[in-house]
């Protein structure tokens, strides 16, 4: 073979800087790199978020989603189990299901009515025997050999992850205990309820969004809302957890009342400190989400998943590349089954903080585009990510780019670039 292997080979001909503090701009611009990512990352030994278990509550519920560009179908069958398989008819390649979320007793491809059960087995071929003994499939045609490829699946506290690769490690090993603990903190033994789903199309490469998610350095500088209302001052108690392999991260902070009075921001003359006030301050009224003091927890799982707590705004974000310079960001806003009416109201109000019109997230929709446009003509230049050193390690300070370095550490290895020789 194979057409598919060519980009991977070509990637070894590219040189990546030895230091984790340099990121070459061509990685956000190059069509060949984008194609190789589909193979090496999205079809590679990694877990991608698919949907919530809660979105497949009943047998027959399905979700048509993607891993990278690859369409996949996630279902719940009558045995109560969740299944996932490529959303591509084994016959001539048409989508098996088109609706994003739906309910079905089986799936029939609209093109030639080939039929699949909820587990993705090919169960029916129209006119398989031909008509009046003429035409039809050959006698050696075996339906079982023509089912769409099944995914490996993992359920982490109601988050369904899938992989197209058989060499992917067990999810517990993949995430590591610290990341698992932080997912459990927010979702463990709780029953999420979907409050809304929105897709934001970003005018930039998907990795620029992931860098932004992992960048705790920017949060209180770019986003005025955070700082003004004490949602995320860098001087709050908090920290960064970078997983052992570097790929996943958690940025968190907790209420620290003494730090509120401190004047670190004024000293830095950063735009964020403006005395801006709300006419309806109930927007930032909140309750302890799970009984602790943590008010912010941004958690990412390599390659493209985010679980977010910003006060009582809980959401998952799925990052899906659509082109080199275009990305779909799928937001799912969550509440929980046992939320009181008052808690529901707080979640509704705080939905204004996030999403495409979010007071603290709208800038993230645009900033990637500013970079994508800014680096045009600079393919041979590098971004510099030196805040907090040159390693990809956990730290108590959030004035660090450690988790960005971690992302690139996993990425450059997965892509098979040659690492620059030591000088």
């Amino acid at each position, binding site marked *: 073979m194979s057409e598919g292997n060519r980009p991977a080979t070509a990637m070894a001909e590219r040189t990546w800087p030895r230091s984790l503090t340099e990121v070459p701009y061509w990685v956000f611009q190059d069509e060949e790199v984008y194609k190789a990512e589909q193979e090496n990352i999205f079809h590679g030994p990694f877990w991608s978020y698919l949907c919530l278990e809660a979105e497949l509550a009943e047998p027959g519920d399905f979700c048509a989603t993607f891993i990278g560009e690859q369409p996949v179908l996630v279902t719940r069958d009558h045995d109560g189990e969740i299944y996932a398989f490529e959303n591509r008819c084994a016959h001539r390649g048409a989508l098996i299901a088109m609706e994003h*979320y739906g309910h079905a007793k089986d799936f029939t491809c609209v093109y030639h009515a080939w039929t699949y059960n909820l587990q993705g087995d090919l169960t029916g071929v129209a006119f398989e025997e031909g008509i009046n003994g003429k035409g039809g499939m050959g006698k050696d045609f075996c339906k079982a050999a023509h089912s769409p490829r099944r995914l490996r699946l993992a359920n982490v506290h109601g988050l369904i992850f899938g992989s197209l690769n058989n060499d992917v490690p067990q999810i517990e090993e993949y995430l590591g205990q610290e990341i698992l603990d932080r997912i459990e903190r927010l979702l463990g033994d709780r029953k999420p309820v979907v409050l*809304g*789903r*929105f897709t934001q199309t970003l005018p930039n490469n998907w990795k620029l969004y992931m860098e932004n998610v992992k960048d705790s350095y920017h949060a209180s500088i770019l986003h*005025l809302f955070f700082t003004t209302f004490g949602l995320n001052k860098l001087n709050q108690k908090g920290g960064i957890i970078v997983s052992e392999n570097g790929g996943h991260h958690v940025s968190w902070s907790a209420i620290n009342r003494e730090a509120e009075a401190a004047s670190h921001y004024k000293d830095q003359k950063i735009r964020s400190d403006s005395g*801006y006030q709300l*006419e*309806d301050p109930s927007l930032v009224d909140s309750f302890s989400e799970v009984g602790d003091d943590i008010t912010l927890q941004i958690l990412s799982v390599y390659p493209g998943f985010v679980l977010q707590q910003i006060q009582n705004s809980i959401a998952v974000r799925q990052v899906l590349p659509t082109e080199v310079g275009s990305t779909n960001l799928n937001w799912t806003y969550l509440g929980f089954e046992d939320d009181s009416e008052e808690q529901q109201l707080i979640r509704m109000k705080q939905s204004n903080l996030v999403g495409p019109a979010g*007071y603290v997230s*709208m800038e993230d929709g645009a900033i990637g585009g500013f970079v994508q446009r800014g680096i045009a003509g600079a393919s041979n230049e590098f971004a510099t990510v030196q805040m907090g050193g040159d390693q990809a390690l956990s730290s108590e300070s959030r004035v660090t780019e450690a988790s960005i370095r971690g992302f690139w550490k996993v990425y450059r290895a997965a892509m098979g670039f040659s690492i620059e020789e030591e000088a």
Partner: protein
Amino acid sequence: MDALNLISRSQGFYVRAIDDGPIEEWPEFFTDDAFYKVTTADNHSRGLPAGVIWANNKAMLKDRVSALKDANIYEPHAYRHMLGQPAILEEDRTGATSETSFLVLRVTGNGPTDVFASGRYLDEYVFIDGKALLKKRIVVCDSSRIDTLLVLPL
């Protein structure tokens, strides 16, 4: 004036406030206890409650305006709203419910005119002192996707 006239007049000035300014006038088209939400047809048909923008009083709308003027960072851009004729669904002397389709074009920076959103307003108006004020406006965008960000209201 009849409901169609009152609502048409109000909506004409509503889009003018957003498209041509001053944007500070936009909250004044609502009652103090108004409900305003921007959502998508998919969320609306599934009965999902959250919005891209969600407000249950006029103060929250004023906060939207001061945030877009003083807090949030984005590339300068402008809308042009094209509204259809309102369909008056129910009316009496105190108010009316209506639906109006919209198309919003957006120009960002020195870029081209792009189609940003199409959809419909699901409205409840009250008539006070010869003016139609919004007690409830649900903005239902046809597409599930929002390009880049939504700063100015719809």
